[in-house]
């Protein structure tokens, strides 16, 4: 469950890296923004009298993807693309600061933004027991939605014109432009796609923990980035594998080590570090080779 969310965030990181060669560090806060947008939409729907989870949930996802995607594109226009040619340090700091701006904006402008917000439980409760393992319907639903989102992204990238453009730009921006790909539009589309995925992840995280908080983007972002790095930056499938792996790591650490739930992130990050020592460009490899 956790792995699916991380994977969705990680796919964003890796997509952005693919087209612009930058790490978009405010992505974690975009993820948080997605959750808050979802909460707002849900509250609005409830006020409008749309009660049924079956109707409210798709609407929430759609609205949150749209809004968050738009914010993602805005962030890219303002802060990422103008600096894409600067040194990595500059983009790093710029996007980290942008994340700070988003975070503080939510803290200040969302009503009582400093408190954790309860997230309504919309998914079916209860569960079944299969061979001694308790399976909750809620978790199954989260898994299903997450997998559906991933399949959708896979379809978009593999078999639409925009997806082809994204892949072309990721390989070689200049050649892609010569072939008639509109670079700016492709980059915008990528950021929309990635941020929309983060919104899905944000809402799923709200549904899973039934609580969202304005600082959840910090760890969320770092974990998403770690997952993307484990999988190899620029590689979408690597990001998915990395996300799932990080989730498994955390859960195993929490289960096996005494007081594991406190130290689960320590273990997970330490494994990521060790991993990068032995495989500095991820499981499935980075998209480009270093040339002299």
């Amino acid at each position, binding site marked *: 469950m956790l792995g699916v969310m991380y994977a969705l965030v990680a796919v964003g990181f890796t997509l952005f*890296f693919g087209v612009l060669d930058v*790490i978009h560090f405010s992505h974690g806060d975009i993820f948080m923004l997605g959750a808050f947008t979802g909460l707002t939409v849900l509250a609005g729907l409830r006020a409008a009298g749309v009660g049924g989870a079956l109707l409210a949930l798709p609407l929430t996802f759609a609205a949150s993807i749209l809004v968050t995607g738009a914010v993602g594109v805005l962030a890219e226009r*303002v*802060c990422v693309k*103008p*600096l894409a040619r*600067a040194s*990595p*340090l*500059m983009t*790093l*700091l*710029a996007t*980290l*600061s*942008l*994340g*700070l*701006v988003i975070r*503080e*904006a939510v803290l*200040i402008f969302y009503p009582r933004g400093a408190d954790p917000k309860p997230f309504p439980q919309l998914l079916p409760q209860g569960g079944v027991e299969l061979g001694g393992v308790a399976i909750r319907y809620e978790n199954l639903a989260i898994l299903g939605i997450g997998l559906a989102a991933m399949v959708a992204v896979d379809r978009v990238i593999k078999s639409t014109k925009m997806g082809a453009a994204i892949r072309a730009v990721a390989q070689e921006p200049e050649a892609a432009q010569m072939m008639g790909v509109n670079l700016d539009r492709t980059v915008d589309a990528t950021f929309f796609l990635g941020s929309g995925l983060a919104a899905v992840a944000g809402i799923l995280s709200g549904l899973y923990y039934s609580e969202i908080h304005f600082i959840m983007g*910090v*760890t969320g972002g*770092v974990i998403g*980035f*770690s997952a993307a*790095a484990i999988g190899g*930056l620029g590689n979408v499938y690597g990001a998915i594998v990395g996300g799932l792996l990080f989730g498994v790591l955390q859960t195993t650490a929490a289960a096996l080590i005494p*007081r594991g739930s*406190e*130290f689960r*992130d*320590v273990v997970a*990050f*330490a494994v*990521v*570090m*060790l991993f*990068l*020592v032995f495989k*500095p*460009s991820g499981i499935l490899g980075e998209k480009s080779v*270093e040339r*002299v």
Partner: protein
Amino acid sequence: MSRDLAGVWLTEAAVFALVVAGILAERPWALGATGGALVVAGGLVRFVPRLGAALAGAFARRRAAALAGGAVLALALPLALRSSPYWTFVATLALLYVTTGQGLNFQIGTAGVINLAGAAFAGLGGYAVGLLTVAGGWPAWLAVLVGPWAAVLVGTILFVPILKTRGHYLALVTIAFVFIFNILVNNLEFTGGPQGIKNIPTLSLAGYAFTTPPALAGVELPAHANFYYAALVMAGLTTWVLRRLHDSWLGLALNTLRDDEIAARCCGVSVTRGKLLAFSIGNFFIGLGGAFYAVVVGFVSPPDFDFGYSLVMLSVIIIGGVDSIPGVVLGACLLVPLPERFRFLHEYRLLLYGVVIVVMLLYRPRGLWPARIRRYR
């Protein structure tokens, strides 16, 4: 030549007076007036080419006098800030950021080793002091000298993944380290958990505790003045040492390493040695800043060293100018006091802080005091 001297000292005195006035101004109009005067003065120097060139020439010809004048004014600052003692503390903090900033700049700016774990290394220094004094019973001054070595030691362990990874992966390794450090100190028993370590004894020399406010010829200085002077000495020494290192063959070798690792290797620069030296030296000074912080404030706790502070340290460098030693001093002296000054906006403080950094990076990416190209005679 004496016109140069007068020009240098008058400029410094004017800037000093305006800054002090800006700090102490209480009414909004007074603050606005001093701020406006600073902006107008800056604009004059910037946009009246003859004035700017004359001043730059005067400062270049009279460097020793300019430095001496700056030192005198820095010494006089607590005296000028007597009516508002809190500001001496803020100035002390700014000097601590000068120390850590120089260390971090040596890593990032000079050697190109991206380190986003500045907060963790400062924390290692601070926690080392806390443990040595409270649990080990060491005198504070000894702990401050030994504490930074904790940062250096842990840094060498972390060095393996740092050497192996490049660019974004390197950034990730250091970010992961800050998180690991923070979770560990938050949950381990001997670091006091979320409470941190309290009651760290203060510095004292030959029975003279640094917390007693010093009196100078009958004029009592603010309570933090002793720490301010100690921090001034520390920041000055750090800046001097790192300036010498930056100008030495080592600094040059590290610069080539930063610009093109393969070319540097071809010219006989050892990548491992260079990076390890830069990383350890930088960590020492970052840890020193953290260690000193522990004795000034008297306690250390996890939130003092979280990822946000890594960002502040990094911003100090970027705002000042990457690889620019005077830039780091300027960056620290702007970034630490300014948010304090605008406390009345405190809700929007971090928001504005983020906006300012983004705008700076977009329009002035080389910093306010860009590094100059090396000159050789």
